[in-house]
């Protein structure tokens, strides 16, 4: 290993969460991602940027294997999470997804009360402790406790979009995941709600590994320590162009394509 950070190599001095090797992704027979090699650091925020259709969401969805819940997919290569191959046939999907939470593009609270939304995961896993306490602490972690503490029994659908998204984050935190995947979590929100989510991400950084897909480069710059840039070539297959500490990607990208994208010269 060299001292220098190579393309696709990010600063993992804090430890490695995901280790991705020669990963290729197929929707049916159509290849969507090819030869992805990257380490994703633990206990920090990694942003994934790139033009639409570059496979950044697909990559994210392969990290908790939710992609295969939607359509028929195939994955070649290896993805390890803390040293465990998550595509090992013996892996229990339920357990994997409990450890890898996900926040989606549009807020998707369940059509039930705020309390029941947060308590959903713990209940599924037969949580034995004090549910009230767990719900409260999860809501506090997600910076939404003050706004909803008086209406825990009302429907989560009555909240604003930004509040709903924080409820969804709290819902994920309630099962105490190691990793939190965020798929453009602010794309449906207004600037103020976006700011709240970004503050929230910053505060969670110490506790868990966050991987966030965003089309907003300023956001990537604000919240992340490392950034991965995905792109497609003329074959429409996504690949990882370059990855590294966010500052380097933004101020001294090694690849011309990254530079073009960052500076807005991208088609």
């Amino acid at each position: 290993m060299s001292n220098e950070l190579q393309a696709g190599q990010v600063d993992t001095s804090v430890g490695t969460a995901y280790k991705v090797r020669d990963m290729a992704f197929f929707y049916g027979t159509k290849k969507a991602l090819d030869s992805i090699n990257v380490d994703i650091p633990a206990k920090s925020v990694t942003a994934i940027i790139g033009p639409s259709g570059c496979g950044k969401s697909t990559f994210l969805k392969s990290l908790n294997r939710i992609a295969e819940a939607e359509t028929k997919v195939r994955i070649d290569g290896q993805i390890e999470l803390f040293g465990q191959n998550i595509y090992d046939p013996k892996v229990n999907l339920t357990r994997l997804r409990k450890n890898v939470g996900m926040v989606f593009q549009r807020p998707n609270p369940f059509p039930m009360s705020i309390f029941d939304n947060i308590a959903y995961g713990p209940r599924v896993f037969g949580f034995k402790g004090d549910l009230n306490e767990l719900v409260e602490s999860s809501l506090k972690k997600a910076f939404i406790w003050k706004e909803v503490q008086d209406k825990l029994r009302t429907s989560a659908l009555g909240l604003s979009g930004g509040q709903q998204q924080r409820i969804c984050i709290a819902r994920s935190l309630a099962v105490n995941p190691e990793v939190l995947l965020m798929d453009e979590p602010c794309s449906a929100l207004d600037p103020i709600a976006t700011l709240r989510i970004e503050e929230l991400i910053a505060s969670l950084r110490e506790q868990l590994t966050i991987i966030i897909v965003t089309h907003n480069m300023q956001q990537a710059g604000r919240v992340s320590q490392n950034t991965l840039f995905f792109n497609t070539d003329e074959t429409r297959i996504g690949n990882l162009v370059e990855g590294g500490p966010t500052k380097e990607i933004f101020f001294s990208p090694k690849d011309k394509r990254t530079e073009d994208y960052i500076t807005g010269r991208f088609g």
Partner: protein
Amino acid sequence: MTTTIPQQPVKEDLTKPIETGRSVFDSAMTVLSIVFTLFAIVPLFSVLIYVLIQGFSSLDFDIFTELPAPTGTPGGGFGNAIQGTLIMVSFAALISVPFGVLTGIFLSEYARDSQFIQVVRFGVNVLAGVPSIVIGVFAYGVVVAAFGSFSAYAGGFALAILMLPIIVRTTEEALKLIPWELRLGSLGLGANRFNTIARVIVPAAIPGIITGVMLAVSRAAGETAPLLFTALFSQYWIESLNQPTASLAVLIFNYATTPYVDLQRKAWAASLLLLFLVLVISIAARFVFRRRF
């Protein structure tokens, strides 16, 4: 990287299975839902196979041309029932199609959000849910009571009401399948709404509307309950629409409940004819609308 940092293993072993209760529940429910689906498909195939086998073995040419033989004597056919069904269903379509198609156009093409439209749509749905026997009772109260006898008119009237909601819904659906741009294109040329409907939208939707009418016809042909005490039954060819009239559906009912094997065989043959009509048209409608009615 010069310094190798020991990887922090995830606190949980990902291959550790979930609680037995949870996984057993999951598998058990999957098996249960497969069994349930088989439950539904077995009767369908059973009905189809029995009607096919029994029906074909009982089918012969006389059935279409002969009158029913006197009870107890073999042979004969039910040409008059086929004739009666055709006549009554045609009569029903004659009443039902204009009202149904116009209402369908109204629902699809005029102010979709108005209060009246809501009432009409509600009414159509409720009418579709009225039991066919009650429609028969209504036809009895209106036509049989007025004419003082059972008649093809009464049967046709009952069938017309039965067909009405189906025609309204399929017409509305057929019109909705026409792209919105076509309407804009016509209105944009200065045509008014009626012109747009009459010259552009309805012609484009004709295949769908005809399929809908056929669907209604096939359902009406299979209906028995509203004919039992409106058209009644008859052993003879039709001479006037103002007298009791035979139909395939009532024939099946009458013959199925007799102890004579020969008549039971005729019931199977009549079922085959009805089922063939209904299934062919339902499958065709499925391809036109891509949804059910």
